């Protein structure tokens, strides 16, 4: 090959190499951008699905609560009131016959107390007004005092003055009580320490207990396979308030942690 034609050839080859490398970068950019668009679409879809799941869980929870209330009214309050009616009928007869005993009044009063308790429980299920009236801490304290056979205590650095919006405190109350009920029912706990720690705008609630505990993966599997609504309701409520649920299975102290902002998201 002659010198000048060789130079032209070399320049062509060299330019081709540069062109190919630039094409490689352009191809990379195009593929990357397509991937980003795809990822973005997937993310949007997953957010939409998640929102739908939360909405579904919320609706299911509401209807389940209504069913529970209806069941309580029908199966517990209803028969008790009917019994009370019969008792009153009997009392009327006894009074007419002059055989009315003082103990009968005593028994009836106790019976009425039971009915009042149940009605209060139903009303409480319908709306945890205690939380609204006295705040989350008092409501949890009250709930813990009512627990039987559990050595429970709580610690808090929360200022009494702090006002947590009802939307958050109501949901937190439900989450905590539902978790406690699950721990008692399924993990057989005998000791429970609940710690409330507020740092800035973030509230951390730690629940240390003496049960076996669950890992995050175990909870996710239970929640997925569970036929009841308790677990999915816990999860959906925590999402709704912008919180995060963490399950830790440490050998000496298993715990559940709830982190949530104290302002409505």
């Amino acid at each position, binding site marked *: *090959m002659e*010198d000048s034609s*060789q*130079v032209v050839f*070399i*320049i062509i*080859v*060299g*330019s081709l*190499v*540069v062109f190919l*490398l*630039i094409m*490689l*970068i352009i191809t*990379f*950019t195009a*593929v*990357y*951008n397509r*991937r*980003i668009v795809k*990822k973005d679409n997937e993310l949007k879809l997953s957010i939409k699905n998640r929102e739908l799941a939360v909405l579904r869980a919320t609706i299911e929870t509401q209807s389940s609560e209504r069913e529970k209330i209806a069941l309580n009214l029908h199966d517990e309050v209803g028969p008790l009131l009917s019994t009370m009616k019969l008792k009153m009928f009997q009392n009327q007869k006894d009074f007419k016959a002059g055989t009315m005993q003082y103990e009968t009044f005593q028994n009836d009063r106790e019976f009425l107390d039971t009915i009042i308790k149940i009605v209060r429980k139903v009303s409480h299920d319908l709306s945890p007004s205690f939380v609204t009236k006295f705040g989350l801490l008092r409501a949890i304290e009250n709930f813990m005092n009512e627990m039987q056979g559990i050595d429970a205590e709580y610690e808090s650095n929360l200022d009494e003055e702090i006002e947590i919006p009802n939307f958050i405190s109501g949901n937190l109350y439900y989450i905590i009580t539902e978790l406690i009920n699950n721990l008692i029912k399924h993990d057989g706990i005998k000791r429970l320490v609940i710690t409330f720690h507020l740092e800035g705008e973030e509230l951390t609630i730690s629940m240390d207990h003496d049960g076996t505990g669950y890992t995050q993966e175990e909870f996710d599997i239970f929640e997925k396979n569970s036929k009841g609504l308790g677990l999915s309701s816990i999860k959906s409520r925590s999402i709704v308030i912008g919180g995060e649920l963490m399950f830790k299975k440490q050998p000496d102290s298993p715990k559940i942690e709830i982190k949530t902002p104290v302002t409505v998201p």
Partner: protein
Amino acid sequence: MSDELYYLITDISILSTVIPLVVALFSYNKAHHKLWWVLFLMSFTWLASDCISWYLGQHRINTFLLFHIYKMVSTSLYAVFFAITLKDFVNRWFIYLGFIGYVILHLLVLTYTDGWYRPVAIVPIISSALPLTLCIILFYRMLLEASIEKLTDSPLYWINSATLIHLGVALIAKISQEFIYLDKAGENLWMIVIFSSIIHNLIFAVGIWKIRAK
């Protein structure tokens, strides 16, 4: 190709190494200080090497010893750059091991062939091939993770593109020069490498500019 044009392009190439260094001085970002430092040192090495070799060339002093030292330092800086950018993707000790192996091989080749003051073909080939491989791995990682929303905002995209173009051209030119065009005409191919070096410096400067704190 005329000598005037050759010298003009070479001078522009030397001058263009100032650009990344100047841009680096105005782009310091505390959040990316490791990356900034390695890019700054790379830019500094290129400029220093170009200036010294220009000075040596003016005084008709052999520049090959400087070239070998420059290759080892510059390739080691590439190792640090890729160890930072490929963190959690490729074990950094594999990267360092590869480059330590290269430096040892470089020294052994120079010692046993007595090549301190002359070009040794294998050296530029390996010193281009190693960072080039990691360059492709970095692009692969970026593609796999797809975590950067706007690619042109990423300094790594520009820096990697600059490295890919320059080292890709240098590698192919060196292979062609050593194994295909054994005569003087093959030297013309080196002009394209010098030209790609100018493009590299400009794109590299864009990459450094992108790491500045906004």
